[in-house]
């Protein structure tokens, strides 16, 4: 099979993302890339844990003073749900139902954007209510770097999915763009998994002190 072939619903392959050699290569290469990303986030987590609550002045806010469960819980739910909706999108991609795929991707994007909005609000809150900034302490630097790196990944993922949706809006699915959609959704899941660790290590463990 090659990228420019025409398909009907009956001939559409079961795993369109891996049907061509290019697709197979991208699929494997992206999994490997995510392996590297895992090490990247592991390094950031290690740095955060080493510098958690390390502040120059006893009056400065620590993790247990900063974090509140309701806000991060809502953020977590938004992102987890967006992971689920991206699964729906891939389900329809495999069934060659382009319109439904696009709709579910749109839901994914909206949920992701809402998450990002909450994160901006949260950072803003820490800066103005607690004076907890990027430059105020080693704790601040490591917190904003870890969570900000994740936020940056979310923003990049949103741009990526939106570009794919706009670019392919008029021409539908083929074996050339199927791997692209699939990889974007893989990336989105990865972001979600990283957030689960941030929620646990930064927020839950932070709140118990």
């Amino acid at each position, binding site marked *: 099979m090659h990228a420019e072939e025409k398909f009907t619903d009956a001939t559409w392959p079961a795993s369109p993302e891996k049907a061509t050699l290019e697709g197979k290569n991208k699929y494997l290469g992206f999994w490997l890339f995510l392996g590297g990303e895992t090490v990247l986030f592991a*390094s950031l987590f290690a740095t955060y844990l080493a510098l958690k609550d390390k502040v120059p002045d006893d009056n400065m806010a620590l993790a247990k003073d900063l974090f509140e469960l309701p806000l991060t819980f809502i953020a977590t739910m938004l992102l987890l749900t967006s992971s689920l909706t991206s699964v729906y999108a891939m389900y329809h991609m495999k069934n060659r139902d382009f319109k439904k795929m696009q709709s579910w991707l749109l839901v994914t994007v909206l949920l992701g954007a809402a998450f990002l909005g909450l994160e901006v609000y949260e950072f803003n809150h820490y800066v103005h209510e607690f004076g907890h900034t990027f430059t105020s302490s080693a704790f601040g630097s490591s917190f904003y770097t870890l969570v900000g790196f994740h936020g940056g990944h979310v923003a990049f993922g949103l741009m990526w999915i939106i570009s794919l949706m706009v670019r392919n809006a008029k021409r539908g699915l083929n074996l050339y763009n199927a791997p692209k959609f699939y990889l974007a959704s893989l990336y989105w899941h990865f972001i979600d998994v990283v957030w689960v660790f941030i929620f646990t290590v930064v927020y839950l463990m932070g709140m118990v002190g």
Partner: protein
Amino acid sequence: MSTYAKKKGFGATLWDFLTTVDHKKIAILYLITGGLFFVVGGLEAMFIRIQLAVPNNDFVSAGLYNEIITMHGTTMIFLAAMPLVFALMNAVMPLQIGARDVAFPFLNSLGFWLFFFGGTFLNLSWFMGGAPDAGWTSYASLALQSEGHGIDFYVLGLQISGLGTLIGGINFLVTIINMRTPGMTYMRMPLFTWSTFVVSALILFAFPPLTVGLTLMMFDRMFGANFFVTAAGGNTIIWEHLFWIFGHPEVYILILPAFGVFSELFATFSRKRLFGYSSMVFATVLIGFLGFMVWAHHMFTVGLGPIANAIFAVATMAIAVPTGIKIFNWIFTMWGGKVRFTTPMLYAVAFIPSFTMGGVTGIMNAAAPADYQYHDSYFVVAHFHYVIVGGVVLGLLAGITFYWPKMFGTMLNETLGKITFWFFLIGFHLTFFIQHFLGLLGMPRRVFTYQKDLGWETSNMISTVGAFLMAVGVLVMVYNIIITSIKNEKVGNDPWGDGRTLEWAISSPPPFYNFKQLPLVRGLDPYWIEKMEGKTEMTPAEPLGDIHMPNGSFLPVTISFGLFVAAFGALFHMDDKAWSIPVIIIGLLITFGSMLIRSVKDDHGFHIHKEDLMDNTDKGGKS
């Protein structure tokens, strides 16, 4: 021929190299750039040795000396050894597995250009207010105190070139997993391909910690963060950990490809199957795995405590086991073989004792209590030059000589090659052997001069003389390359006469599609198997058909150039220059804009048609 007719002329050739996605041309780009940086790093080494030749010398000032040693280490590791290794991998690995190209030709080109612009950015520091001066390890406690922009050039330049390396690593991994020709099972892959495979995995997991370390350093220096500022709760040891979690695997990233080259050489020039192939594969993988478990042996004197030191000491000594397996297998490959002492083989034979000496001092350093004596002395300098020069550089010189005909279609002069070899080998031992004793006599590393009557004068002078001999060897090699290129006498597909693997089954240099028909592999050393059965070419594994090829692209250059521009903005942000933020934005726009163009524009590549291949008598896969 219309689909791949070639234009001639300098402009067309330049444009071809700027836009190429062909792994063989990218290999040449890596070779040229890496070679130039090798000369730059070598000049820096000569300045170091001239300065240290006599006591109380004032050839360079103390500050300039710090810049020179920092740039010597950084250039040699990141900008000379790494790209030269990548040159060999790009030139040889796809041919060895019978592939028409790498898995991601576009990314291959992007990887090169990121390295190119990162390396250029780093070296521009010499002309823009001073080079980095905190050592190649750039420990945070020193680096944060460093004035001027040297460290910023280091951080941003390495960040950009490191991205290129990571991309290259992923590319090679996917190529080896997905693109092997029919019959090329994992346990039939040549050792050089195996080492490329393991090294790529090391790159994938070792470079992200460096990325993070450099990012934190960048945030601290340029954007007011406090990761390494102890007064604000920071911790400078974090940098040391992140750097060495990258840095130790990095030395295996450099040495394993050299091991791969030597494995090919011993088998080829002993006219024998590599002894203990399976154990060689096992040893390569094990070295790669253990390479991640030993980083803290660089930090024995930091004060991590006796338990941490003991664990890392034992893990370090464990690496001697798979390395020993390799040394013995190479010796046994020569045993009973019909050995031919060509130039590459001379390097291979000299490598065994040279590298083993570096290994033995490695074990001495691994003994944590003893390391307190060796630490920060010339003993350590001698040790790592024995493994890097005695291992990696000998491997690169051997590999470049061996694969020169495959890359360029011409043979380097053997006599001149042997002259280079003897000058380099004798010079190398003269330079570094004596440094063991300098270290034991108490000479600390990284000092810009020393007093008289400490008993170091004669040894330092001997060391400097050795360095000049090495330089003579390199000059002879440059001369050799020039006259070989001028003579331009083309050779056949198997110029050494004893080629065993697939790359020797096709013409030198190979056609841009490599194999007209993918070859069928029937065992280890497939070309040798066919030759032993009296055949002159590989059996094809597929009928002659259209070949799908990728299009060239200029976008890798613009993507990398955007980061290069943005790096200048970030660098001058520290000085509160008004234009720094706009420059960052413009640079990132160039980069992300180019990426968007790449995403939006469909690129299906093109096909070479069967008919065009048939009227071409220069068949791929034919002997």
